[in-house]
C-alpha cells in the first residue's frame, strides 16, 4: 500500500481532492477498495432493537431499551462504591501478594539458612533480580488497561530466556536423588503458587480475556515460587533446574491460560 493508497483509505466515502482522484484513476487496488466501500454504502442502517416489555420504565419514550436495567445496575454500583477505584489498585494488591508469598515461602522453607543456592552470590542475586523483573513486568502486562497487547513471541521469548538463564547459572552441585529432588521442588512450586495464582485469576476475570495477558499473569504468579526455589534449593544441576524448576514454572503459565479461558468474565473492559 503506497502513501497515496493510505490517503485514499482515510478519505473513503468523501469527495477526493484532484490529486487523489487522479491516483485512484490509475491505481487498480484503490479502484477495487473504493468499489468495495461503495458496494456497501446504501444498505444496512443500524437495526432497531426489538420491542421489549420488561419494565415499566421502558414505556417512557425518553428511555431506551435496556436503559432501566443498566441504570439500576449503575446506581447499585455507585451506592456501593461512589468513586471509581483506579486499575492500579489491583496491580498493587497482586504485587503485594507475590511479595508476601515469597517472604512466607522462604520463611517456611528456611529453617537453618535463607539461601541454599550454592552458586556465586552475585549470580544468585543477579538471577533473582531478573526473576523479580519478570514478575513485575508480567503482573503489569496482565492487569494494565492499555489496549496494545504485548505479542506472544515477546512473552515466550522473555520467559524462555529467563528459564535458560536459571538452568545455565546453576551451581552444578548435586543435592538429593534426581527423582526425589524433582518431586520435592515441583510440589513446592505448585504449593507456593496456589495463592498468587488464585488471586491473579480473580483479578484477571475483572477484565476481558486475552490469552497473552493470562500467560503473562500465570508466569508472573509462578515466578514467585520460582524465586523461592532459586534462593532456597541447594540442588544446582542443570537437569534438576530444568525439570524441577523451569518446566513446572512454564507449565503454570499454560495452566493460567487454561483456567482463565474457562472462568466467567465479570467485565469485558480491556
Amino acid at each position, binding site marked *: 500500500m503506497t502513501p497515496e493508497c493510505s490517503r485514499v483509505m482515510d478519505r473513503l466515502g468523501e469527495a477526493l481532492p484532484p490529486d487523489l482522484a487522479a491516483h485512484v484513476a490509475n491505481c487498480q487496488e484503490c479502484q477495487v477498495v473504493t468499489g468495495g466501500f461503495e458496494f456497501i454504502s446504501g*444498505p444496512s442502517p443500524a437495526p432497531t432493537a426489538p420491542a421489549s416489555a420488561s419494565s415499566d420504565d421502558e414505556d417512557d419514550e425518553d428511555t431506551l431499551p435496556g436503559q432501566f436495567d443498566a441504570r439500576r445496575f449503575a446506581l447499585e454500583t455507585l451506592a456501593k462504591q461512589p*468513586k471509581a477505584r483506579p486499575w492500579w489498585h489491583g496491580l498493587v494488591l497482586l504485587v503485594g501478594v507475590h511479595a508476601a508469598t515469597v517472604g512466607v515461602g522462604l520463611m517456611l522453607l528456611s529453617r537453618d539458612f535463607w539461601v541454599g543456592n550454592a552458586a556465586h552470590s552475585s549470580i544468585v542475586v543477579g538471577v533473582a533480580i531478573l526473576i523479580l523483573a519478570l514478575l513485575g513486568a508480567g503482573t503489569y502486562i496482565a492487569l494494565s488497561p492499555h489496549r496494545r497487547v504485548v505479542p506472544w513471541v515477546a512473552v515466550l521469548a522473555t520467559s524462555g530466556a529467563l528459564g535458560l538463564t536459571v538452568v545455565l547459572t546453576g551451581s552444578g552441585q548435586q543435592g538429593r536423588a534426581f527423582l526425589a529432588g524433582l518431586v520435592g521442588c515441583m510440589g513446592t512450586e505448585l504449593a507456593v503458587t496456589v495463592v498468587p495464582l488464585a488471586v491473579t485469576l480473580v483479578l484477571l476475570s475483572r477484565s*476481558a480475556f486475552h490469552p497473552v495477558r493470562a500467560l503473562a499473569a500465570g508466569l508472573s504468579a509462578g515466578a514467585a515460587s520460582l524465586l523461592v526455589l532459586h534462593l532456597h534449593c541447594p540442588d544446582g544441576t542443570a537437569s534438576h533446574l530444568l525439570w524441577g524448576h523451569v518446566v513446572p514454572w512454564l507449565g503454570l503459565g499454560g495452566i493460567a491460560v487454561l483456567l482463565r479461558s474457562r472462568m466467567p468474565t465479570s467485565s469485558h473492559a480491556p
Partner: protein
Amino acid sequence: MKPASAPVRTGDDSGRASVAPESDEVLMARFCEGQALAFDALFQRHSRQVRGYLTRLTGSASTAEDLVQLTFMSLVRSRGRFLAGSRFKPWLYAIATNAARDFQRRGRRPEELTPEGELPTGVADEGPGPRDVGLERAVRQALDALPEGQRIPILLHRFEGMGFAEIADTLGLTESAVKVRAHRGYTRLRELLATLRTETLE
C-alpha cells in the same frame, strides 16, 4: 458521509440538560466521580449505535440486546480502567467487541442457531423505509464470509463511522495494521459481492 454521533436526548430534566453538551470523556470522568446522570447521557448517546454494531457482528438482534447490557455493565464495573486522556468511543467499542468475542468463544445459545446448528445468515431489521433486501442479504453474506480480523475494522469504519486511528485504538493495533486489514477486507468484499451478484443474475 459517515454517521455522526447521535445527539444526547436530554428531555425536560434540568439535571440531564446540564450534562448534555459535555464530551464523552468529560461525562465518563463525571461518572467515575459518582454521577449517575453522566451514565444516563452516555447510555443514551451510544447504546443504539453499539446495538447496531453488535447486531452486525453477531448476526442476531436478541443477542446484541444482551450484549449491549453486558457492555454497559462492564463499563460500570470497570470505570476505573478508563484512562484519563484516552478516547471514550474506542474504549466502549473495545468492550462491546470483547463481549461479542467472549459470547462466540463460549458458544451460542441454542435458540440463536438454525435447526442445522448453524449461524443465522440474516437479521430481521425493523427499520423504516423501503430497502433492497436482496442487496442487504448479499452484503451480510459477504461480510459474514470475511475473517474477523477484516470484518471488524470494516464494520467499525463503514457502519460506525470511526476513523482508522479510532479503530486501531479499539482493537489494540497500529493504524497501519488496521488500514491493511480494511484494505484487504474491502477488496475481498468487492470480489464476494461481484460473485454473489453474478450468481443471483444466473
